């Protein structure tokens, strides 16, 4: 059932829920996936994002999200200045990303440790988003739930071990999306959860046989 606060709300910086508030949330999701504030960001804007980004402030909204600002943060219009202060180098360009939603951005992020993370996502209306690609993997991540992003080696039993570990903490899986680079290659699981997984669980998960990395994400901000 919809809350009255979704109708009289959210509180947000304008002008557009899809092109501004949704863009902030795409930046926030990408920041979380990159494991924190990146050192540099090359942002490719597609379709309506490319055509209207100046008027809608889609560019500054994405950067604000990468800096960890929420959609109601009044610093959003000045996010380029804040990025410079925070040591985040930004490059924005319109691009054709192919057969994707008209409001799509691809962010090529260089993390603090120097690795490259590529995140593609779409703002699908009313501030809602879907992250559609992380690196080489097709995903479907909305940021509405708690989530775990687990990179692992494709081999029998890994998914079973992950899900039984979640069961021990009584954490319910809302959706699970698994894809792999190649047989026995790297695989990625996006697991959206009804409850948060504890830091202890995430730590145990990270040490499991076959697991390469684990990122635990809280739901993305709404106000």
């Amino acid at each position, binding site marked *: 059932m919809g809350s009255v606060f979704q109708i009289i709300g959210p509180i947000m910086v304008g002008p557009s829920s899809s092109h501004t508030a949704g863009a902030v949330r795409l930046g926030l999701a990408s920041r979380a996936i990159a494991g924190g504030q990146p050192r540099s960001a090359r942002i490719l804007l597609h379709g309506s994002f490319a055509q209207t980004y100046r008027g*809608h402030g889609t560019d500054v909204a994405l950067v604000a999200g990468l800096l960890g600002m929420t959609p109601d943060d009044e610093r959003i219009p000045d996010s380029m200045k804040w990025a410079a202060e925070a040591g985040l180098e930004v490059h924005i360009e319109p691009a054709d990303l192919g057969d994707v939603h008209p409001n799509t951005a691809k962010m090529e992020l260089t993390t603090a440790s120097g690795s490259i993370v590529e995140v593609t996502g779409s703002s699908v209306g009313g501030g809602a988003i879907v992250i559609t690609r992380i690196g080489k993997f097709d995903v479907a991540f909305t940021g509405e739930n708690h989530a775990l992003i687990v990179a692992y080696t494709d081999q029998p039993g890994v998914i079973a071990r992950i899900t039984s570990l979640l069961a021990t903490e009584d954490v319910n899986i809302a959706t699970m999306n698994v894809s792999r680079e190649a047989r026995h290659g790297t695989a990625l699981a996006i697991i959206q959860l009804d409850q948060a997984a504890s830091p202890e669980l995430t730590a145990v998960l990270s040490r499991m046989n076959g697991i390469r990395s684990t990122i635990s994400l809280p739901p993305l901000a709404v106000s």
Partner: protein
Amino acid sequence: MQAISLQELAASASSLGVNIGVLAREWEWQETGEPVESLNERMRDRLQVMRDAVARGLGGGRSRSGLTGGDARLMRQAPEAVRAIGGEPLCSAISYALAVSEVNACMGRIVAAPTAGSCGIIPGVLLAVGERLGSGDDELIEALFAAGAIGSVIERKSTLSGAAGGCQAECGSAAAMAAAAVVQLSGGSPEQCIQAVALALKGMLGLVCDPVAGLVEVPCIKRNAISSSVSLAAASMAMAGIRSVIPPDEVIDAMGAVGRDLPVSLRETAGGGLAVTPTGRRIAKEQLRQAGVEA
């Protein structure tokens, strides 16, 4: 929100002897377990953001695209003889609605009510009438809960999205929600509130969404002001005891059906209406050039 129809919403409120806002808050508490004081505080925050946006917008300022800005200030500073044309609370409602919509276009902070594109109408109408009636914050907060309840029903039965239903779904719904809120604030019954919804929405039926250059500015900002006048007219009629011949729930259904019948070019795609007039096209071309995209 438990109500699936306006009829049910008004009947439940009447049978409990409360207004629609109080009922909506009660239902929110029942569904989320969040205490009433906390719900009130969250709505109070929204009321404050609305007031801050009005104050900021009346001060002027151009939008990011450079297309709009300063009209709220012009309306506010208009001479008494000019303001007498519309009178009060209409002139204040117009200037406040312009103010909030201009703040939205300037990347300022607003409350999407129900959307960012239609964010000026509810604060414009509610704050203007509230000033005139001397309403307290508690009453304004209850009126916002009422507006939210109406919006919930519209969303469930039809749509609040311009891309799905055109501007009637955004500014039309906002005008209807604001009309109900103002009727409640003026001491009208729940039945009068939903009659105001029907009267406002009927006046907005078929309104297309045709943003110039795809931006939430032209004609959105001034449509927020015009929609406020529709809202006040509907609230006045409902308070006088005028009833819609077509029942409120059927009007909402009709709005949804009209939205589905609207061509895609008139649903937020900038492919029709004002967006494709010679001036609309010229502005779009200039915006694209500034963005570094080939027109």
